[in-house]
């Protein structure tokens, strides 16, 4: 198991209630795991806890056992062991720029350079990452002059360039146009061939095609987990809005579960 949570709770500093509460879940290598749920469900917090950024950077308090790539990310030893192995993409890419690079190329090279890789390896990984994210043409641009979508792609290229074993991606397509979002989502299973991908997103419609496992949270508590097709067809997930738009409409029409989650399934169910 790449990431394992056992009864994990987390409180932000000064918060009366837990952002996630006794969550147990596992994320496996070779898979894309989707964490979803209504606004404030705890998906972002789950990612931050898995990365060890919570409580390290956020402050606050964690309970329960977390294992990320075999170590506890909140301990000093864990942090040392995880250096360069976990790639995190925050939902606000403009806050994630290094601020120390004056070109997109330098920005993408920032993390690999800090990991002390040799020049040839850095050039190689940066070129590949920029190509994968479709930002090669922006190589000489100043990162601070990019549009929201361009910036999100550049920051993601920086994460890809690190060649992490674990990707923790929080709404990675939030700023992207539909074509860009589609391309990014198609990339995730490819990244998962040699890594574990944990994706926090409310966009179930888009994630359905690429997620092999889903965790549904609501106000920090685990609601459902397992095979996406089963989970999204269930009332348990649909009642929280954590399902596809097709299933949502069918449920609104008053039909019973299991809900058809795709257009084809709806056609089969309603047309003779």
């Amino acid at each position, binding site marked *: 198991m790449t990431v394992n949570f056992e009864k994990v709770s987390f409180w932000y500093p000064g918060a009366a209630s837990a952002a996630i509460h006794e969550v147990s879940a596992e994320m496996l290598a070779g898979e894309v795991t989707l964490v979803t749920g*209504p*606004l*404030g469900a705890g998906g972002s917090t789950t990612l931050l806890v898995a990365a060890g950024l919570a409580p390290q950077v956020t402050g606050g308090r964690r309970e329960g056992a977390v294992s990320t790539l075999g170590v506890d990310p909140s301990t000093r030893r864990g942090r040392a062991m995880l250096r360069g192995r976990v790639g995190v993409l925050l939902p606000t890419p403009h806050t994630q720029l290094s601020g120390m690079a004056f070109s997109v190329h330098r920005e993408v090279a920032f993390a690999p350079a800090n990991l002390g890789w040799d020049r040839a390896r850095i050039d190689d990984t940066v070129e590949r990452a920029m190509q994968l994210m479709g930002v090669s043409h922006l190589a000489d641009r100043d990162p601070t*002059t990019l549009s929201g979508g361009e910036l999100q792609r550049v920051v993601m290229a920086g994460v890809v360039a690190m060649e992490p074993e674990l990707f923790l991606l929080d709404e990675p397509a939030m700023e992207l146009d539909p*074509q860009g979002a589609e391309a990014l989502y198609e990339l995730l299973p490819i990244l998962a061939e040699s890594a574990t991908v944990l994706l926090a997103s409310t966009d179930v419609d888009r994630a359905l095609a690429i997620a092999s496992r889903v965790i549904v949270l609501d106000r920090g508590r685990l609601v459902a987990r397992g095979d996406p097709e089963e989970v999204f067809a269930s009332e348990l997930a649909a009642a929280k809005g954590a399902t596809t738009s*097709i299933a949502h409409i069918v449920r609104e029409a008053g039909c019973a579960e299991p809900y058809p989650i795709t257009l084809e399934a709806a056609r089969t169910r309603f047309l003779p």
Partner: protein
Amino acid sequence: MTLRVDDVSFAYGTNSVLRGVSFAAEPGEAVALLGRNGAGKTTLTKLIVALLHPDAGEVWVGDWNTTGRTPEDMATRVAYVFQHTEQQLFARTVAEEVIFAPRQLGVSRRDAEGIVEEVLGLVGLALHRETHPYDLPPAERKLVSLAAALAQRPQLLVLDEPTQGLDRSHVLRVCEILRAQARKGVTVLAVTHDLTVVAEGFTRALVLDDGRVVVDEDVVRIVASEGRAAELGLSVPAGPALSRALDLPGFPIRMVEVARAMRSRFGVG
């Protein structure tokens, strides 16, 4: 209030972004502004609220030309929701953020309090009155910006990605709010990438490409055919797709209407 963008061009230095953009939006119209990343959508919205001024051409909000006017002048007519809330939010509590504009516009404290109550209820943040905006996750912060914009009681409402990162129930709520604004006679213009949002909240769509308006069409027409949407690099949202697949009468496109049509057609519920 009528918005008129007349042959507007704009460049950041030598980087030309808009090249002769023209369109008008009338009171009661809800217009969605689509286009690829870097197409100039955000730039266009900033020209409307006088955060930027055109290099050539004119932007008119009612009988005001934005040239020579400041964002503060424009605020009496136009409310703007930024794409990134940290460019907008500054107060220590959600309520303070929302009351700022009406107070600046001369509304009495008592009346302004009433407005705060109303708009926070509308966006679903009534319980977060005293919360620090930055203690909210980015997506919910966007709702604070929207509440602050509504509190301005604008005649023109301009929004940059108002539903980014929101879950379905909040997306539908925001779309409902925008529809209600348009029904009241407000002119609504919103940048979005999400065709579901367009189908739920808007009547007309503009597509910006290479600095020009290349599509100006009725929303129903765009979502009615797979082909038309695909041409624009978009996919048909679930509502109209279901409506067409099941051949629902009247071709409803909003989720709630599609569900209603299914209920009467298939006799469920």
